C-alpha cells in the first residue's frame, strides 16, 4: 500500500492532503525557504501521531512536524519530502489548573488563545511572540520562542513543566509534570528548542503566570540609535529588569505609524517601549529609574501610556511591525540574533554598516532588553540576485553578533537558515555531541532531517578503539 493510502486508512480523506496546492502551501513557513512535501497529515490525537510516525517509518520517509508555520528559519520546511504532521487540529485545552498555575494543552493551541482562556483565573502564558495570535504552543516549544515579555519572564523553556511526546519508534513518553524537579535526566529542556528533530510534542504542560496588579508603559524618544541602545544597557546596569524593553528605529517607526496612526514620533531616530509590572509602588519607582537613565542619555521625550487603551495601541504598533513593513518593499528577511546587552551600541552601528555595504534597507525592531536583535532587510525577490545579497548580508550579521560574544538565534531557531553557521559557535566536538543527542532520540534520522545540525556533524572521532563492551 502506498504511504498516502496508509495515512488515509488512519485519518480518512479529509485529514490527508496531497493535492498540488496543498503540497505547495505546506512546503514553506513564513520565511524564505521552500521545501518538498510528499503528503500532509492532520492528526487529532496522540495515538494518531504515533501511528503516523510508524507508517512513515514503514515507508522509510521523513516526518516533519509543523504548527502554524509562522517560523522564519525554515524549521517546518521539509527538505527531503516526507509526511508533514501539522498539529493545528490538536488544539484542545485539556485542563487549566489555577491552583497549581499551569495548563495541559494540545500543541495546536494558539498562543494567544491560551492566555485568553487563562484570563478568568488572572493568569496568562508568558511567552508572547509577535505572532502570538497565530503561532501554536507546539511551535513555541519547538523553537523555544520568546517575545517582548521574555526579558523578565524567560523564554518558553522556562514555562514548560511537562511534555507528552511521540518518539521515533512511535512510543509515547511523558516527561515532567506539575511537581518540581522530575527525577532522572531532565528531557524537557532538551526537547524544548529541538525544532522537531527529536520527537513530536503531542501535549504540553505549561506554566501560567499571574497577571500583574499594575503596569506602566513608557514610550521614550531619542535623536540617536546609540542613545537608545545606551539607555537599554544603562537600565539593566542600574539593576532593573523591566517586563519589556523594546526598540524601534526610525524607518520602522515610520512604517508602523503610517499604517497604525498611534501617534509615534516619526522624526525620532529611535524609540524605546519600556514596560514595568508589579504592585503600584514598585512600578512607579521602576518607571522613575527608567526615566532617569533615559534622561541621562538625552531622551527627547518620555511619554507614559495614560490608560490601557493607549498601552494596547503602543503594543499593537510593536507587535504588528512585521506586517507594517509591507509598504516599504515587496519582501523582507527578518533576522534573529543575540548579543550581550553591553555590546548593543557598537553592534547596532555595524548592523547599519552591513546594510549600506549590501545596498539593503535595514529596519530594526527588537527585544533590546535581552540583546535580541531583529534586523529586517527589505528587498524585492523578483530582482535578480537580490535574495543572494540578502543571504550574504544575513550571514555577515550572524558573524558580527558571534564576534561580539553573541549567539546565532535568540528565539527563532536554527532550522535550515543557520544550520551551516553552527560552526561559528561550536567546535566539531561540540557539534558531534549534539549529533549524538539526536542519534540517541532518533537513530534513523526520521524526524525533520537536515535541520539544526550541519551535515557531517557526527564525524568527530578520537581515532581510538572503543572499549570492549562499551555502550554504542
Amino acid at each position, binding site marked *: 500500500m502506498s504511504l498516502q493510502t496508509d495515512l488515509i486508512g488512519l485519518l480518512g480523506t479529509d485529514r490527508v492532503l496531497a493535492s498540488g496546492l496543498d503540497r505547495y502551501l505546506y512546503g514553506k513557513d513564513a520565511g524564505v525557504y521552500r521545501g518538498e512535501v510528499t503528503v500532509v497529515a492532520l492528526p487529532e490525537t496522540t495515538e494518531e501521531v504515533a501511528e503516523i510516525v510508524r507508517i512513515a517509518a514503514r515507508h522509510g520517509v521523513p516526518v516533519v512536524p509543523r504548527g502554524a508555520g509562522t517560523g522564519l528559519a525554515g524549521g517546518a520546511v521539509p527538505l527531503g519530502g516526507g509526511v508533514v504532521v501539522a498539529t493545528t487540529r490538536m488544539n484542545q485545552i485539556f485542563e487549566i489548573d489555577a491552583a497549581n498555575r499551569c495548563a495541559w494543552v494540545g500543541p495546536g493551541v494558539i498562543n494567544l488563545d491560551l492566555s485568553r482562556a487563562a484570563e478568568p483565573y488572572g493568569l496568562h502564558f508568558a511567552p508572547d511572540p509577535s505572532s502570538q495570535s497565530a503561532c501554536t504552543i507546539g511551535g513555541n516549544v519547538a523553537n523555544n520562542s520568546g517575545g517582548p515579555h521574555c526579558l523578565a519572564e524567560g523564554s518558553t*523553556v522556562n514555562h514548560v513543566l511537562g511534555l507528552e511526546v511521540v518518539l521515533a519508534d512511535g512510543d509515547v513518553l511523558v516527561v515532567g509534570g506539575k511537581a518540581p524537579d522530575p*527525577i532522572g535526566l531532565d528531557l524537557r529542556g532538551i526537547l524544548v528548542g529541538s525544532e522537531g528533530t527529536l520527537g513530536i510534542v503531542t501535549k504540553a504542560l505549561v506554566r501560567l503566570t499571574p497577571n500583574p496588579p499594575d503596569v506602566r508603559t513608557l514610550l521614550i524618544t531619542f535623536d540617536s540609535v546609540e542613545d537608545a541602545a545606551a539607555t537599554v544597557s544603562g537600565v539593566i546596569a542600574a539593576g532593573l529588569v523591566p517586563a519589556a524593553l523594546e526598540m524601534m528605529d526610525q524607518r520602522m517607526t515610520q512604517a508602523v505609524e503610517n499604517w497604525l496612526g498611534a501617534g509615534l514620533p516619526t522624526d525620532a531616530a529611535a524609540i524605546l517601549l519600556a514596560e514595568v509590572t508589579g504592585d503600584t*509602588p514598585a512600578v512607579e519607582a521602576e518607571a522613575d529609574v527608567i526615566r532617569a537613565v533615559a534622561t541621562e542619555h538625552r531622551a527627547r521625550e518620555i511619554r507614559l501610556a495614560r490608560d490601557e487603551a493607549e498601552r494596547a495601541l503602543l503594543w499593537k504598533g510593536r507587535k504588528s511591525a512585521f506586517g507594517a513593513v509591507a509598504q516599504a518593499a515587496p519582501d523582507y528577511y527578518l533576522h534573529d540574533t543575540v548579543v550581550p546587552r553591553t555590546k548593543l551600541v557598537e553592534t547596532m552601528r555595524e548592523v547599519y554598516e552591513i546594510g549600506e555595504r549590501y545596498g539593503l534597507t535595514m529596519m530594526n525592531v527588537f527585544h533590546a532588553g*535581552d*540583546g535580541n536583535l531583529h534586523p529586517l532587510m527589505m528587498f524585492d525577490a523578483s530582482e535578480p540576485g537580490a535574495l543572494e545579497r540578502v543571504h550574504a548580508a544575513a550571514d555577515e550579521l550572524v558573524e558580527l553578533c558571534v564576534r561580539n560574544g553573541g549567539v546565532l538565534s535568540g528565539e527563532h531557531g536554527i532550522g535550515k537558515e543557520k544550520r551551516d553557521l553552527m560552526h561559528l559557535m561550536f567546535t566539531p566536538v561540540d557539534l558531534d555531541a549534539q549529533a549524538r543527542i539526536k542519534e540517541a532520540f532518533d537513530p534513523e534520522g526520521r524526524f525533520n532531517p537536515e535541520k539544526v545540525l550541519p551535515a557531517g556533524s557526527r564525524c568527530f572521532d578520537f581515532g581510538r578503539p*572503543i*572499549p570492549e563492551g562499551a555502550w554504542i
Partner: protein
Amino acid sequence: MSVADAFRSFTRASAELAAVVPPAETVLAPSGVDELAAVMQAASDVRARVLVWGGGTHQGIGHRVAPDIVVSTSAFDRVVAWEPDDLTLVVEAGAKVDTVEAMLADRGQTAALPEWGGPATVGGIVAAAISGYRRLRYGPTRDRLLEVTIVTGDGRVVRGGGRVVKNVTGYDLPRLVAGSFGSLGVVVSVCFKLWPLSGGSATVAVDDPVRAAETLFRPVALLETPDGAYAYLAGTEAEVRSEAERVGGAVTEGFVWPDPPSGETVWSLRVPPALVPDGIGRLPAGWSFVAEHGVGHIRCAGRFDPEAVAELRGWAEEMGGAFVLEDADDDRIYETVDPWGTPPTGLTLQRRLMAAFDPAHVLVPGRLPGGR
C-alpha cells in the same frame, strides 16, 4: 594496566579531601581541563568507575557509587568572566557558592544559588540541580543556566548553550546537564544569568502562607517550618513596606533563612505546589522541615521509618511527584530503600543519552534512577 597504574601520573587531591570521600583506589584533583580530559580518557580505557566530587554537600543523593577513582573539581575555582552590566557570570565548577554569592552581592547582584552554601560548589549545585529558597521568584537553578562546559566520560570537552540571556542555538545541553549528577560529564564551567538584588527586603511572619501566595505578587519565597510561616519580600523599600502591611505579621528587615533540616535521613518531597499543606500534614511526627509554598517542595528530615517513608512516597508518586532521599547518616539505609523511588518512564532513552556522553559507562555508574 591496573587502575592505580593508569592514573599514576595525574595530580592527586589533598590528603584532607582523600579522607572525606568514599574509599577509592585514587583521589585526583586535575589541575586543568586538559588533564581532566586525559583522566577521563584513561578512565574509559581501563573502565574505572568515577565519582565526581565538588563540595560533597549533595553526595547523599542517589544510589551509592563504589568508585575506583574520585575526581575532584577543586582546582577549577576561578571566575572566568563576570559582566555585571550584562547580568551574566561565567565561573568554574569548583568555585564555592558562598564565595561567588558574596562577590556578586558586592555589586548588588545574585545568581540565586542556595542560601545554605557552605562548602557546596557551583558545579555540584548544577549537577544535582539544587535550587535555593528564592526559586519562587527567580526560578529553579536550571532556568538560570545559560552555558555549560563538561568533560565527557571518554574525555571530550563539550560546550553547550551561550553567554547571553536568550538563546536557541542547538540542543539545550545546559538543561540536560542540570540534574545529571555527573552521569554525562564532569562540569568544568557554567554561565549563569544573574539578577539584581533589590534595595529593600524583609521577612514577614504570615499566618496563612497559602493565602499569602495568592495575595502577594511575586514574593521571593514563602517558607514554612515547624516554627511558623514567613513571606520573603524584595523590591523598592516602599513596595516592600506596602506588601508587608498587606500580609500582616511581624516584620524583620532583610532575609532570615531557615537552616536546612537535618536528621538521621534527609528527604526531598516534590508535589504539585497546591499540595504543600497536605504534604506537611503527612510528614512523620517529630520530623523537621522547610516547605516551599508555591513551588511544591518540602525538604524534611527525621528518624528513618521504612513504613512512613513508603507511605509518603506512595502518596507523592500518586500525585505525580517524588520522595527522594537526599542524605542518610548510615549508608546501609540505601540498601533498604531505593533513594529515588519508582524510576521515570523512558529509561531506555535516558540510558542512550548517557551512552552518548559516556560510552564506556564509567561516570557515577548506578547512581541515577533505575540504577544507571
